[in-house]
C-alpha cells in the first residue's frame, strides 16, 4: 500500500451508526455511482454534513459502526466521499467485511480515544507505529488492524485491486 500515514479532520459520530444513517434507501435504490451516493452520505444524521466533508477526512465513531443492512452502498458512499480511514470502537460484521473488500481502512480504537475526539479535530494515523493521535485534544491510542488475512486485501487496496494485480483471489493462491 502506498501510504503508512494518514492525516485528516475527524468526522465524529456516535454509537450504532447504521447503514441507513450512512446512506438512505432513497438514494440506494436509484444509483450505484459512488460520487452520487457520496453527495448524501450521513445526510440523515446531519443534512449539512455531506457538504462539509472533504477527501481525507477520518471517521471517528463509537461502537457497532455500520450496523444494519448488507448494502455495500454504505461503505461505497464513504469511499466516494474520499474517506479512507474509519476509526471506531467496534464494527458491525457485514459492514467491516464490505469495507475491507473496498480497500477502506477500518481500525478498532479504545473508547477513550473516541470520547476525547470532537468534530473536525486533527487526527494522525501512523500504521508503522500502530498508533493514532488526536493532535488537538492530545489523546493517543493503539489501533487494532484487521486480521492478517483481511489485511492483505486492505493492503492491496481492496479485493478488486488484488484480483486485477494477481489475476486471482487471495485464497486461490495456494491451490
Amino acid at each position, binding site marked *: 500500500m502506498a501510504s503508512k500515514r494518514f492525516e485528516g479532520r475527524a468526522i465524529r459520530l456516535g454509537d450504532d451508526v447504521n447503514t441507513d444513517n450512512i446512506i*438512505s434507501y432513497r438514494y440506494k435504490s436509484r444509483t450505484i455511482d459512488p460520487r452520487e451516493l457520496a453527495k448524501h452520505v450521513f445526510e440523515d444524521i446531519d443534512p449539512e454534513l455531506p457538504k462539509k466533508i472533504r477527501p481525507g477526512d477520518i471517521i471517528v465513531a463509537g461502537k457497532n459502526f455500520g450496523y444494519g443492512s448488507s448494502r455495500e452502498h454504505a461503505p461505497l458512499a464513504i469511499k466516494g466521499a474520499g474517506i479512507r480511514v474509519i476509526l471506531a470502537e467496534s464494527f*458491525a460484521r457485514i459492514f467491516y467485511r464490505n469495507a475491507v473488500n473496498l480497500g477502506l481502512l477500518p481500525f478498532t480504537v479504545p473508547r477513550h480515544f473516541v470520547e476525547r475526539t470532537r468534530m473536525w479535530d486533527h487526527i494522525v494515523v501512523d500504521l508503522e507505529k500502530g498508533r493514532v493521535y488526536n493532535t488537538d485534544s492530545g489523546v493517543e491510542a493503539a489501533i487494532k488492524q484487521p486480521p492478517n488475512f483481511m489485511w492483505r486485501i486492505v493492503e492491496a487496496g481492496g479485493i478488486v485491486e488484488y484480483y486485477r494485480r494477481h489475476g486471482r483471489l487471495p485464497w486461490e493462491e495456494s491451490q
Partner: protein
Amino acid sequence: MAGQTFSEKLLSIKSGKKVYAGDIVVAKVDLVYMHDGTAPLAIKVLREEFGEDRIWNPNRILFFIDHVAPSSNIDTSKLHKYMREFAKKHGIRVFEAGYGINHQVVFEEGYAVPGALIVGADSHTVTHGAVGAFATGVGSTDAAIAMMTGSLWFKVPDSLKIVLEGRLGEAVLGKDVALYLLGELGTSGANYMTLEFHGSGVKNLSLDSRLTIANMSVEMGAKNAYFPPDEIVMQHLERVGAKLPVKPVYPDPNAEYVDTITVELDKIEPLVAAPPLPSNVKHVREVEGVEVDQVFIGSCTNGRVEDFHAAARILKGRRVKDGVRCIAIPASRRVFYELLRDGTLEILVEAGCTVTHGTCGPCVGAHFGILGPDEVMVATSNRNFPGRAGDRTAKIYLANPYTAAAAAVEGKIVDPRHLLRKA
C-alpha cells in the same frame, strides 16, 4: 477432538477440513441470491471491476425484484432492466415484481434446506437458519465473487446457545422472542456469532415464528442463526419440494459455546421496540397511548400466514380508525393466495386496510407508504432507525402483528390482549 457447534460442523463439511471458531475457511456455497437493492452493484462489480462476465452456475443463483417493485421511478426502472438483461444473458432466474420478498420466496420455494450454505446480498438472509441452513448476508462484492466462483471465505463464528423452554402465551409470537433477545443482547451482543437455538420450547414454535426469530438475529449482530431441523421443517419441504439436497447438520452434544441463555417462552409478553433502535425494547404497556399515523403489517420479518391470521383476529368486525393508514403486505404471492382462499384478506379489506402484493414497501422507505415529518408508524418489520421509512423525524415502533393491528383500530398503541378479550 472437541465437539463442534452447528457452524463449525457445517463449515467443516463445506470446506473439506475440520475447523473451529476463529478459523478462516474457503467454502463452497450452495446458493447465492440478491435483489434489486444489491444485484445491480454486484453485477457492476463483476463486470466493470473484476472485468469478468462468467458465472459459476445459473441454477444456483437467484435474482429478485422486490424492494421497489414494481418500480416507482425511472432510475430504479433502469436498474431493474440492467438486472434482467444480465440474468437473461446468463440464464439466471428472475423472480419478478409481485412474486414476493426474496427471503420469503427462497424459503417457500424450497431453496432453503437443512445443511445448505446460502449467501444472500441482504442482511436478512439469516432467516434460513430457521430450517437449519447456514445462511448469511454479504455485500455486493462478496456476492459478485460468490456468483463468479461458487466459493467464498468465511471466518468460523463463535456460537451463542439459546435454550427456549415452554410455550408462547396469548398474543405473543416469534417477534416478541426476537425483541426479548434484542433487549438482552443489544444491537451487537451477538456480533460475529451464530445464535444456536435449542430446548424443548423449539418444537412449540411454528415455522413462521422460527423464521421471524432467525430473521431478526442480525439485529443483534449475528452472522447467522440455527434451529435444529425437525418434522415441521421436513413436512414443509415435502409440501413445497426441496430444490437443493437436504443434508441436516446437528451440533455435537459436547460443542463449546461462548455462553448459554435460557428463555422461558411463557414469561414473554407482547413487546415493542421504540425508536431509534430495535434494542430499545419495552413492554407494550409502557408505550400505550402513543398516537399512530400509519400501521404496516408485512416484511420478511412478519409477512407470513401466521402473522396475518394474528392481525385478522384483531381486525375481524372492527374498522381501522379514521385518519390512520393501515398497509398490509403479505410477503409473497403464495402467502397472498393462501390468505385470499381462507378469507383473511376479506377481513383485512373490510376493516379498511390497503392490501398489496409482496414487496418490501414501507419497511425500507423506498415506496408505498413513506412517512412524512414527525409521523408515527407501528410496523411489524425489523428496523426503526430514524429515516428508515421516510423523513428522519418520523418515528417507528416495531411490534408483532397483534399489536400493529390493535394500533390501527385504536389509532394509538394499546395492549392487543384488551381487544382479543373483548372479541
